[in-house]
């Protein structure tokens, strides 16, 4: 009986589940390190201030979809499956640091940059406007799987979470909607409104 030909996606799924324990270790290690490094800040927050550290391992289908979208053609070369590997992704293991108000972001960013030296900056920007500070690199848990961390305003980060879980997560392919210019503009409107809300809140909290 002829062997059934495995697709690029089949190979990548196999790779994912082989890597899965290592991805988990990177995520756990990175989360623990970041929580530890942030203790001087998290221990001294004022009553209205918030700091949250969230960690996630990218799901198999999200990882495949991300790799497919990484190519400008959004398609795998079926005759060259060997050129694709999930280890080329920076965010299989990710940590997001959410802070409120946003005046805490610079302090958090500086502290983590000092502690995680050698990590590569890859800021999240839209039309030249900075939305989140993002870095990727290797931690002690693996020399194969890169981790990623983001430092972002809490309201914007929570908006991204809601947007992701409500709209994109049920069908990873829908994430392509985010590339539409009109959709990007609407998203930017939300981010701008959340930022203005935080600035107003912060100004009033300072007066108190």
């Amino acid at each position, binding site marked *: 009986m002829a062997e059934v030909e495995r697709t690029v996606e089949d190979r990548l799924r196999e790779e994912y589940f082989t890597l899965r324990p290592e991805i988990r270790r990177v995520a756990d290690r990175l989360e623990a390190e970041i929580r530890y490094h942030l203790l001087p800040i998290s221990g001294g927050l004022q009553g209205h201030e918030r700091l949250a550290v969230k960690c996630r391992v990218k799901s198999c289908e999200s990882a495949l979809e991300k790799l497919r979208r990484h190519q*400008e*053609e959004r*398609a795998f*070369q*079926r005759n060259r499956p060997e050129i694709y590997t999930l280890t080329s992704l920076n965010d299989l293991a990710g940590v997001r640091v959410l802070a409120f108000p946003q005046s805490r972001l610079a302090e958090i960013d500086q502290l983590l940059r000092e502690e995680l030296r050698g990590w590569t900056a890859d800021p999240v920007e839209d039309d030249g406007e900075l939305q989140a500070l993002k870095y990727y690199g290797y931690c002690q848990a693996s020399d194969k799987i890169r981790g990623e961390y983001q430092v972002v305003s809490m309201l914007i980060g929570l908006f991204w979470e809601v947007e992701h879980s409500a709209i994109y997560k049920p069908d990873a*392919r829908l994430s*392509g909607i985010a*590339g539409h210019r009109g959709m990007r*503009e609407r998203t930017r409107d939300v981010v701008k409104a959340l930022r203005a809300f935080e600035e107003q809140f912060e100004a009033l909290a300072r007066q108190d």
Partner: protein
Amino acid sequence: MKTLDTKQNILDDAGFAYSIDRMAYFNRKSKKIFSVEYVEDHDEDDLERAIREDTGGEEWKFYFNSGEPPESVRREIEASLGRG
């Protein structure tokens, strides 16, 4: 903000639809496809020039920053865009 609106308007006015799966703007009539990266990295004049460009309309013309896709990928994209 202005740039974003203008490019989207140019594409809308020229009858380009957006493919969520391909993350690209395409027009079945003129058989042209622009990746979001291409639209992002080229100004309005380039975009309008590309839309006006006479490509014969026989085969799909790909406007990608990375150039023409490999043949197998090209066939897959053409097959998916040819539907509908």
